[in-house]
Structure formats: C-alpha cells, structure tokens
C-alpha cells in the first residue's frame, strides 16, 4: 500500500483548471498548476466536496467494478442504508434488496444492522464513563481524517469504535461461512457505497489491521444497472432484517438520536463540521455529550456517490422508517468492535519540522502577504492570497503567478519604456 492512496482523483482531460474545487476544498488540498488541478495527497481527506462542485465532472471517486465478483465463489452485497433512499418509485426495502441480488450477488447484508450494534456499544461506553466529552462519533471517515490532520487535540474525543460497515463486513463473512461452508477467502464482501472516503479507509486500513471489505461498488453504478429491472421484480423475498434506528443512520441526526444522551449535536457538511470542531477545541460547547459529525450535506444520503437529491433521499428514508419496526437480528460472531489501532496526528500543515525554521518561514509569509491584493481570486492557483504566500515560501509558487503582481510589473516596464522614448 502506498503512503497516501485516495479514492478521490482527477481526470486531467476533463479539468479546465477553473477555481471551483480550489475554493471549496476544506483542507486547502488543491492547487491549479499548468492549467490543471492537482490534489495534495497528504492533505486530502476524501470528503468529496470537489466532486460535488466540479462543473466538468473532472473529479472522480475510484471504486471497484462488478468484474471483481468473479474472483469469489460467494458474493455478499453489503448495503449502506443510504441506498434505500435512491429510488423514486420504490420504497419497499425487500423489493430493492431483491433487485440488488439479481445483479449477481448471492446474498445481501444490511449495514444498518451493524449500525444498531454500534449504537448498543456506544451506549455501553457512554454509561461506563470511559469516553472524553464531548465524544465525537467515528462513523464518518472523512471527519476522522480531518481530525487527524487539523484537530490533534480532539483525537482522544473520537469514540474508538469501528464503522458499522466494518463490523457488518465481519459478521457477513461469518454468516456466509456458516451458511455455505466456503472458506473465508472464497467469500467476497462488496460494500455498496455512497462514500468516497470509505473506499480510502478500506484500501488504506486506517483504524483496522485489515478491512473485511473486499471491494467497493458505488451506489451510482448499482443504480444504473438496477433501474432496468426494478419495476419488473415479482418474486420479492423477505430480506430486510435491520430496524429503523439503524437505517436512520443514513441521514444526519439518525445516529445521535439513537444514543442514550439528549445533549448531542448532529452537524453535517464538512465546513459546518470544521466550525463545530473549532469550538470544541477552544473549550466551548462544554454542555454537549455527543457529537455526530458527517462530512456530507444531510449525512450519508448526500454522499458524492449517490444519485438521488439528498433532500429527497432523506424524506424517503424517514417515510420508510415510519412504517417499519426496530427489531433486528443481533450479531453472533465473536469480533472486537473497537479500533485495532488508533489514529495518529499527521501535521501536514506544518511549515517546517524545526520550530525556529518554521518561524522564519512564517515571518516571510507575513511580509509577502502584506504585499498581496488580498482578494483571494485563486488565479495564481492557490486557494487564497494567504495560501499563495505560503506556497511561495514552501517553494511551490512564484510571486509572478499573481496576475496583479504581473500587471504591476507590466505597468512599470511600460512606464520605463515611455520614459526612454
């Protein structure tokens, strides 16, 4: 595994070098160089903001294809609850899951079941008093990465539990082995994902030693294939076993509502998440016990790999949940829900490993910044004048990349020429 593998990538041929992604990236991980966007890998948290704002669809999330299913004897689709909100004319979960199986899977497993298990475990941990307050949910991988690079003081506040997807994958494999007698490695577990960051987590093994998910297929890819025969399903099977409290994790507020505390915040949208984390780091929000923080607008239903408008999907999921019970099928595999390893602070914003050298650079940045137009236009290829000053000092940019600086120089040259006439 390379040091930084990312699901979010750029299609150079489609990129026009505009400033949309540059201006929206919450970690300033994008630069425009030579008329094309460039992602600074160590800063990218795979939140998918750039995918959402790119008008040319040049930003993509790499996922796996259906071909991968051929590598296994028995394939299980691991279904994110956001999937249930993607179909405009079908709201019956059993119909949706029956149609999904027909795409070539042998069985399905609902991640909402894992969500219910994680809720149980979280409540146990809240009761035991072992968590730092406010405790921050670990459900959103983009938020976990964000904390690792920008909020080192809050690493200890993250509830160190695996994601519902990860524990579901382990249980799915366990159930499949019991049912078929196949070996563990003969079973393929495929996550049907609304999320790019999950893919990065699976391939990068951030908080688990080795992910139990074998492949990731985007909800988009599945929906395109399913739309053809969803209306023709006749032999609907009883496949739903998850309860509504797990399914509601797909929308913001769902996870927090299911916890035992009333003093919670549910915040969605990566920029809102940053604001809340800033306040927690500054010692504000002391009356809050639990924070559900989701990078995508509206929660996972707003994921960059979904097809339906997140507001419509939210409405649909809430409607579906009105008419179903909260019964679930508890997990019976022996697995550890806690992280195999904790996350470490990655000081990717640092100017220099040596503080004195960093201060020398910072003083240079301040001097340069004072000379800048401060309109943050992005034409130089950096997201703001401040970031541009940093890039110059880091050696990634030169002052004449600023069109205003260039204009001044051109004017000076012109005046000199006129004088000499």
């Amino acid at each position, binding site marked *: 595994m390379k040091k930084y593998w990312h699901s979010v990538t750029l299609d150079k041929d489609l990129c026009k070098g505009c400033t949309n992604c540059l201006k929206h990236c919450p970690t300033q991980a994008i630069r425009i160089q030579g008329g094309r966007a460039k992602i600074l890998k160590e800063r990218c948290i795979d939140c998918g903001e750039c995918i959402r704002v790119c008008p040319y669809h040049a930003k993509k999330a790499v996922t796996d294809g259906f071909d991968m299913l051929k590598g296994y004897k028995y394939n299980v689709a691991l279904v994110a609850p956001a999937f249930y909100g993607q179909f405009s004319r079908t709201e019956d979960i059993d119909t949706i899951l029956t149609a999904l199986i027909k795409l070539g899977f042998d069985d399905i497993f609902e991640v909402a079941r894992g969500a219910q298990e994680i809720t149980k475990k979280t409540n146990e941990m809240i009761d035991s008093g072992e968590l730092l307050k406010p405790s921050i949910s670990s459900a959103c991988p983009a938020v976990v990465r964000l904390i690792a690079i920008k909020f*080192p003081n809050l690493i200890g506040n993250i509830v160190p539990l695996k994601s519902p997807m990860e524990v579901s994958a382990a249980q799915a494999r366990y159930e499949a082995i019991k049912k078929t007698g196949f070996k563990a490695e003969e079973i393929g577990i495929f996550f049907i994902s609304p999320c790019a960051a999950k893919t990065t987590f699976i391939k990068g093994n951030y908080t688990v030693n080795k992910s139990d998910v074998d492949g990731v297929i985007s909800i988009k890819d599945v929906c395109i294939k399913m739309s053809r025969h969803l209306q023709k399903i006749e032999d609907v099977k009883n496949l739903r076993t998850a309860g509504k409290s797990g399914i509601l994790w797909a929308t913001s507020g769902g996870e927090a509502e299911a916890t035992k505390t009333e003093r919670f915040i549910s915040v969605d949208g990566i920029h809102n998440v940053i604001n809340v984390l*800033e306040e927690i780091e500054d010692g504000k929000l002391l009356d809050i016990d639990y924070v559900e923080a989701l990078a995508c607008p509206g929660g996972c239903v707003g994921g960059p790999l979904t097809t339906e408008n997140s507001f419509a999907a939210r409405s649909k999921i809430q409607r579906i949940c009105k008419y179903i019970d909260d019964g679930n099928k508890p997990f019976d595999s022996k697995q550890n829900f806690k992280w195999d390893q904790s996350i470490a602070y990655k000081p990717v*914003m640092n100017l220099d490993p040596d503080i*004195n050298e960093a201060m020398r650079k*910072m003083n240079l940045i301040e001097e340069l910044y004072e000379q800048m137009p401060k309109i943050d236009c992005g034409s130089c290829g950096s997201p703001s004048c401040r970031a541009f000053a940093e890039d110059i000092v880091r050696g990634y940019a030169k002052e004449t990349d600023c069109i205003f600086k260039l204009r001044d120089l051109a004017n000076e040259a012109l005046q000199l020429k006129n004088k000499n006439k």
Partner: protein
Amino acid sequence: MAEVMKLHYVVSGDDFTRAGETSSKVKKTLNQLGFRPEVVRKVAIAMYEGEINMVIHADGGTIDVDISSDEIVIVMQDKGPGIPDVEKAMQEGFSTASNNVRELGFGAGMGLPNIKKYSDVMEIDTQVGKGTKLRIVIYAKE
C-alpha cells in the same frame, strides 16, 4: 539565533460574535509552526477567555503575542473599569457580568480561573477606572 514572531491584534468591544477570532488565528499560526497540540490548546483557551473578558467588561483592547520556540507570551491590555478585587475575581463562579451577557452564554465566572488553569504564568496588573493588563506565559518545551 532563535527566531521570534510578534503578533499584534486589536479586539473590538462591540461584537460578541467576533470574540474568539484572534485566538483562532493564533491557534492556526501555532499549529503551522509545529507547536505541540497541548501547547496550542492551552494558548487557544487562555486567549479566548481573555478576549471574551475584554469584550464583556472593557469595550475591547489590544493583544500582543510573542512566540519563540521556548514559550508563548500573551499580553492583553484594556482601558476598561479595572478589577476591584482580584482575589474574588479568581474564584470559580464569581462574575460581575450583566444578565444580558449571561443570557448569551457568557459570564459564568470561569474566565480568569480558566486562564490560570491553562497558563504557566499569569500576572494581573489592574487599576480601577484605568484598565487591566494581563500577562500570560505558556511554556512550549516538554
């Protein structure tokens, strides 16, 4: 020679929503300079509390931050009413903030106690009717 960075800020006295902007900026700067997260957190909290005090009680003031690899020195100065009884003001829960201010979630009487808790040195120089100068030092070395 060891580098020093000097930062100067003016805190306006009429806007609660902007209180905290200065500590936020300093936090970002210290993070980029590579100070340990615990140090950054102490500075951010101590400065934020001081900033709020300036806004609530003293109609704003100035903040000077001197950063070196050994320590961070913060001097907060205002021309406010001064603190008549410093010992009392240091007690947790003691507050002279108005009801309006408390309604906004401030004035819990934790300002100065928190600053003391999160700083390594704290000196108050205050004169009733003239103003207050608060000097805070936070050591950066382990």
